[in-house]
């Protein structure tokens, strides 16, 4: 196991050169600059760095770095009591070349070193166009007065699930999730994330009146009490899925795909399957937890229907059933099939969504942006007259309340936030989640690292984030002269595009700014 390895002898000796054949580490990317005058040799940075990068040399009575191991997680910089540390880029890098960038070259080195699949974490980090950033929001002027959210009621509550087609007396009622704001924590499994972080998510979900999602890793016995605020996932590996798991939760979600890695499955390496993870997933300690992409009992929409109704039967039709897919080509047709199969909620996860671990080549090149997927799915379901049969949750790349407002106008009922929730509790987007030694205690269960995040602190910060967004959403609704998110849903007239082609505007179903 990685954690129990002897400290790297090279690090202990402070030798810079990596082992022969390790070209990837031959060129440092970052430089840990330490102001020796300011440094008081407290060794905080030595203890805080989980990446074998910082060491103390008693002979020189100084603190030094093996720079090529540094991933720029900024933990040492954050913790240093005297602000002696400053991260910089290492030198000039390779000769300027827009085609062969540093990252491209280094990835080739890494694979030539190892012959393996290059793994990474978090979300797509490439420069694709962001449609969120090319949409602007309308506001009321003169003829349509805006509303002051501080003095007038604003409705942010989202009912998520199937709605009746028309009003009847008595009304038809279907099981719905009731979220006090249309923001839900994205699926992140215990194992991929630390217990403390998941507990923080659960506490914040309860506090803010929304939901967290267990991911495909089961529900820890200590979190059972948050069942009313839990959406539980059923994926191909069926980890931790039992009758109690299903019936104790607010909703069940069938995971078909993930935006960060459409078409490939989950794989929690054996070293992350600790005692606690093992009992939550109900598998032996130290064994690989394989969750391959295909659920081998689902080869068609009819098979999907079988599982959807199986879950409904198991929960006696008291819970909405959700189906989560990655945003890919033809997503609208797929979503239509899912709704017709009986799903109450469809989650569309865009290609900017995060992951605990994925091959870099897939994270960076597969899938489509959630903005276009969302617009197309909403449009298609409306055209087919089945939009009321399911709610639509957009995921993958929601960074702010502005994205929420824009997504609402494109037709979403609610949103999943994953990376934003991690950043709220300290994540610096260093993309090392797959290595299981997150220096902020978020995506690790290593006993020395996981306690760095305390559940109460996480819960408070997450609740703050949701409150902040809720206020902003109210402000933006008021500024548009609306008093509920219902009035904004699918209201694309409130959006305009800047710097897009006509095809892009048409795909999103919005008009050019100025018109």
């Amino acid at each position, binding site marked *: 196991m990685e954690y129990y390895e002897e400290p790297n002898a090279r690090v202990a000796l402070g030798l810079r050169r990596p082992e022969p054949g390790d070209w990837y580490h031959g060129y440092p990317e970052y430089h840990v600059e330490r102001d020796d005058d300011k440094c008081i040799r407290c060794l905080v940075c030595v203890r805080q760095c989980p990446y074998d990068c910082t060491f103390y040399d008693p002979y020189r009575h100084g603190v030094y770095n093996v720079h090529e191991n540094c991933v720029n997680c900024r933990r040492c910089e954050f913790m240093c009591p005297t602000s002696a540390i400053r991260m910089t880029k290492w030198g000039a890098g390779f000769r300027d070349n827009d085609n062969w960038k540093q990252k491209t070259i280094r990835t080739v080195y890494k694979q030539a070193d190892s012959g393996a699949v290059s*793994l990474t974490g978090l979300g797509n980090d490439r420069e694709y166009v962001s449609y969120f950033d090319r949409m602007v929001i309308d506001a009321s002027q003169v003829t349509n007065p805006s509303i002051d959210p501080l003095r007038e009621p604003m409705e942010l509550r989202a009912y998520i699930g199937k709605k009746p087609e028309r009003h009847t007396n008595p009304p038809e009622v279907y099981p719905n999730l009731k979220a006090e704001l249309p923001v839900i924590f994205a699926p992140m499994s215990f194992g991929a994330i630390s217990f403390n972080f998941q507990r923080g998510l659960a506490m914040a979900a309860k506090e803010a009146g929304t939901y967290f999602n267990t991911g495909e890793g089961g529900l820890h016995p200590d979190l059972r009490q948050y069942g009313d605020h839990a959406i539980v996932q059923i994926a191909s590996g069926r980890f931790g899925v039992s009758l109690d798991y299903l019936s104790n939760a607010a909703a069940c979600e069938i995971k078909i795909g993930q935006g960060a890695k459409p078409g490939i499955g989950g794989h929690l390496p054996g070293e992350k399957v600790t005692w606690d993870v093992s009992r939550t997933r109900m598998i*032996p300690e130290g064994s690989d937890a394989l969750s391959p992409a295909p659920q081998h009992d689902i080869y068609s929409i009819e098979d999907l229907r079988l599982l959807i109704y199986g879950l409904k039967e198991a929960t006696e039709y008291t819970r909405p059933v959700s189906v989560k897919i990655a945003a890919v080509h033809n997503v609208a047709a797929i979503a239509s099939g899912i709704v017709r199969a009986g799903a109450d909620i469809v989650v569309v996860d865009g290609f900017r969504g995060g992951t605990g671990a994925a*091959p870099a080549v897939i994270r960076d090149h597969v899938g489509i942006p959630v903005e276009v997927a969302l617009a197309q799915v909403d449009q298609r379901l409306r055209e087919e007259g089945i939009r009321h049969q399911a709610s639509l949750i957009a995921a993958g790349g929601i960074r702010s309340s502005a994205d929420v407002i824009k997504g609402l106008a494109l037709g979403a009922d609610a949103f999943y936030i994953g990376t934003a929730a991690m950043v709220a509790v300290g994540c610096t987007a260093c993309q090392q989640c797959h290595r299981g030694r997150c220096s902020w205690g978020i995506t690790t269960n290593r006993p020395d690292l996981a306690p760095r995040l305390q559940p109460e602190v996480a819960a408070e910060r997450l609740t703050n984030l949701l409150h902040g967004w809720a206020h902003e959403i109210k402000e933006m609704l008021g500024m548009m002269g609306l008093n509920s998110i219902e009035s904004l849903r699918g209201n694309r007239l409130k959006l305009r595009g800047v710097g897009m082609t006509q095809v892009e505007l048409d795909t999103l179903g919005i008009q050019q700014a100025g018109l």
Partner: protein
Amino acid sequence: MATEPTLAPAVMEPVVISAAGLSYRHLNEQVRSAIRSGATEITLNDVMGHRYIGTGIHAPGVTIHVNGVPGEDLGAFLDGPHIIVHNNAQDGVGNTMNEGRIEIHGQAGDVVGYGMRGGRILIRGDVGYRVGIHMKGYRDKQPLIVTGGCAGNFYGEYMAGGCQVLLGIGQSDKKPVVGQYCASGMHGGVMYIRGELDGWKLGKEVQQIPLDRHDREFLKPVLEDFCETFAVKEKLLEFDRFVRIAPVSARPYGRLYVY
């Protein structure tokens, strides 16, 4: 919602329900309400492809007899009951089953016992593709599937725990005991296969091992249970005809990735 187990009265007449003309949803509602009112013996007659029989029922000590052919997902998420099918069954028997016992006095379709984590499934005849895939075992919860006949492709794929026994009764040159890609991706648990097994059909993650004393001790009661349940007279206890298949490593893909 889980059906709460109620204390059964001392004597309760067996409940007989006719499924004729009922949708699966209504049939299953009737089964649940019978269990709630304390029935421990339920017989379902005229079953014609009704899905989800016994699905999501938490009721140890209840026996459900199924006369006719049940539909898909028989006993999915099953938690306790004993289901006896006096006929063939379709796909998805015992999907993600947790506890209980299912007996099929005929053949069963594809994906029997998907992600099963406890209890026992006994099948008299043949089974289809992908039987016992993703089976999990944890501590004292070790699921078991015994198949009397032969199995299709991907038998025990991704198996992570528990045990499968394949007896191959009725196998011949034209009908091999198991299809291709047997045990591919298997990384836990064990399977015992009786009869001729071509090595090339096995996934590369597993190895064949002759039985030892421990295996024989484990298999003996299992085989006796099978013979008794289905009144099988064939001598199954010739252990030299069995081979044990177990994974080489609990971490089949440990060296595939670079950080």
